[in-house]
């Protein structure tokens, strides 16, 4: 088992505990590995309906007509939900923390902004019947040009795919989120070396073993119980109630045991459809993503494009860092406006740089909306930052451990967002890792501490 280094921060970590620090076996390990743990889908309800979505085949198109006749004729189909059935069809997931406006339809109305966008939901006695009927929904489209590249999306001449008239999220009247401290341009002029490189990621799937899903069950008194694998029970309850125009007290969310989330079960996508189906049919409704939907329709980790320009002094100090971040939100906001702020807040990484400029855009494109994923706003930024650090070390002929130690933030330093650093420990983890592999550090680097700058 991973050992705790007791000779680092010894005074700060002093304390005597009975239960804290014990390597207790996890309480649910046995039931997880024997298959005894009950997940939402292990609950059986008689008379259950299965929801399957008919989805957009195009990245960007107007919907001219939807013909449901062939779908309705499939044996076992109980009901088909369209946007007209959704009480408050337009929503945005972060309205509860004030990041508006409503900009995503639960079910598409006159247009689709990404391939896989939900148009109508089939409710049927069996999953097979629902799938068959979904395939028989006939949609007449008028295709529109798709914007798939973030750089293109923000060019002045590119048509806006969003009704607010641009392809970026607007932060209090600004087209991007901005952070700065010091004078980056002046510091670049003083720098002995300039490093400017761009980094790119592609969308990544959460890939939980258990796909996103929920079962809505009508209860006496006009209530509905949602058995869900949401990562956020009340967040799901509140957003579903708002979309459905239901008093909050009429919904109950039961969950808490989930087969992997990684951020993929924070959007509220399946629950409103399941409850709406239950409201309109009086029967329990299950809506669960297939593996293909989980991979191509469920929101992935955003692709990010990050350019870092560094001004470095001859002795290795980074004196200026300019970071430009383009977050590919896909067609709708979901949690990306929030993730973009988090990405900007993370820069310039765990280093103290006196002159920093950060500009981060949350960009809309005609692809599956991205959203939260483990390390939201940070993971791809760390890739860019740390490859950049490696480049600087190599170009300057510096030891990569020592260049990082030299620039590592210390207690009392000021971050770019003007919060004072406390509880820093970057120096110590680098020292510990170097020791682990027997990598020699200079006496100055061995003597460094996060508690003060020497």
């Amino acid at each position, binding site marked *: 088992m*991973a050992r705790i280094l007791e000779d680092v921060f010894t005074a700060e970590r002093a304390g005597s505990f009975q239960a804290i620090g014990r390597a207790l076996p996890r309480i649910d390990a046995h039931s997880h590995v024997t298959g005894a743990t009950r997940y939402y889908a292990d609950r059986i309800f008689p008379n259950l309906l299965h929801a399957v979505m008919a989805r957009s085949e195009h990245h960007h198109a107007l919907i001219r007509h939807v013909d449901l006749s062939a779908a309705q004729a499939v044996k076992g189909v109980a009901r088909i939900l369209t946007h007209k059935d959704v009480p408050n069809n337009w929503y945005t997931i972060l309205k509860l923390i004030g990041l508006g406006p409503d900009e995503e339809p639960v079910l598409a109305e006159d247009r689709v902004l990404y391939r896989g966008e939900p148009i109508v939901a089939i409710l049927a006695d069996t999953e097979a019947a629902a799938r068959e009927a979904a395939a028989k929904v006939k949609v007449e489209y008028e295709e529109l040009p798709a914007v798939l590249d973030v750089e293109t999306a923000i060019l002045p001449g590119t048509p806006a795919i969003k009704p607010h008239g641009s392809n970026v999220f607007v932060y209090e009247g600004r087209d991007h989120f901005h952070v700065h401290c010091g004078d980056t341009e002046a510091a670049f002029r003083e720098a002995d070396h300039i490093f400017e490189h761009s*980094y790119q990621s592609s969308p990544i799937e959460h890939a939980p073993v258990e796909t996103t899903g929920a079962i809505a069950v009508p209860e006496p008194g006009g209530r509905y119980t949602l058995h869900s694998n949401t990562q*956020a029970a009340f967040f799901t309850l509140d957003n579903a109630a708002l979309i459905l125009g239901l008093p909050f007290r009429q919904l109950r969310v039961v969950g808490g045991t989930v087969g992997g989330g990684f951020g993929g079960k924070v959007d509220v996508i399946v629950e409103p459809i399941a409850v709406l189906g239950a409201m309109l049919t009086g029967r329990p409704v299950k809506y669960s993503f297939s593996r293909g939907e989980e991979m*191509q329709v469920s929101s992935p980790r955003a692709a990010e494009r990050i350019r870092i320009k560094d001004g470095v002094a001859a002795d290795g100090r980074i004196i200026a860092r300019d970071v430009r971040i383009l977050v590919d939100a896909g067609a709708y906001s979901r949690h990306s406006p929030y993730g973009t702020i988090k990405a900007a807040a993370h820069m310039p990484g765990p280093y103290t740089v006196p002159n920093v400029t950060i500009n981060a855009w949350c960009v809309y494109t005609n692809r599956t909306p991205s959203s939260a994923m*483990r390390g939201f706003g*940070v993971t791809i930024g760390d*890739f860019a930052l*740390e490859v950049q650090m490696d480049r600087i070390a190599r170009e300057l002929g510096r030891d990569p451990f020592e260049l990082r130690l030299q620039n590592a933030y210390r207690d009392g330093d000021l971050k770019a967002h003007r919060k004072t650093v406390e509880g820093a420990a970057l120096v110590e983890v680098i020292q510990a890792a170097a020791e682990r592999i027997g990598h020699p550090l200079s006496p100055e680097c061995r003597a460094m501490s996060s508690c003060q700058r020497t």
Partner: protein
Amino acid sequence: MAKLRGRGIAAVNYPTGMNLGGDPSQALIHATTTGNFVVTLSSVDLGQGLRTIMTQITAEVLGIAPEAVMIDTADTDTGPHCMGTFASRTTHRVGNAIIMAATEARKVLLDVAGEELEVAPEDLETDGTGRIVVKGVPGKSISVQDAALAAHFKHGRTISGRGIYLKPRSYPDFETGAMDPDSCQAHACTIAEVEVDTETGDVRVLKLISAYEIGRAINPMMVEQQIVGGSWMGMSHALYETTEPYYPNRAHGPVDFLGYLMPGPADIPEYDAVILERPSTNGPFGAKGIGEMTANSPIPAIANAIFDACGARIDDLPITPEKVLRALDAAALAAQP
């Protein structure tokens, strides 16, 4: 054509708690008549093991055995509010809420025990196994079970507590970006050792060595579980995974695990990790979140190790064999006189 080995390093920090705060969680605790304690939450266990961590925090504050704690989650009819499981926040937020609730419950427990033993409650201590003992008088004690029975049937008191943790929301200054975006920062340094096959472009990760600073390891075995799982995910992000292999082109999107590749058991490297603790001023017993960050440092460490091995600098994730071969070709071309 050769198999070339290289080593790369990356160092990272990671914020605990929802960016900008404003993400409260609550906990309610009550004793059963027989001296077990139910912790009612609406928090979600995604597999990270919150039931075990919350059990240990409850047991520590109440001074009882972990076996006497039951975690009841998540039902919005009975559980108090939790913002959700994300942002490496659960140990920090819910742990703090539990400390507050358990502190209130412990006070009632010791009040009742004091009355039963006819001593002042401040003269009592818990032994962590189910007994409440008069300090300095080992023979004079009462079991938690007897105290709980007495509270209910004799004194008419509920041994219970309410807890909440809220870091008030910080509103950024949109002119300067000034803000308070985190509760604390955890830290990591990872060293990756890789082998690159210059004929096929295939990258094997041989070893991942890490040091993690996470404030306080509430349960070191579960910390290690996060490090191992996160290392695997980071390696998978670095080399394998994407839903759009030719991004921003939307073609060739995988729809199953035959097309969406991840490392299998044979691809898993050797792991080595040490833990450092610099307790935070605001975490439960100083704990910071480790949940998300373990996937982060392996990615650039592996990218840097690939460059170290073969001179291919690839700035575009994931680093597939195709990209490695193209980068090697480009490097060879650039090296020609």
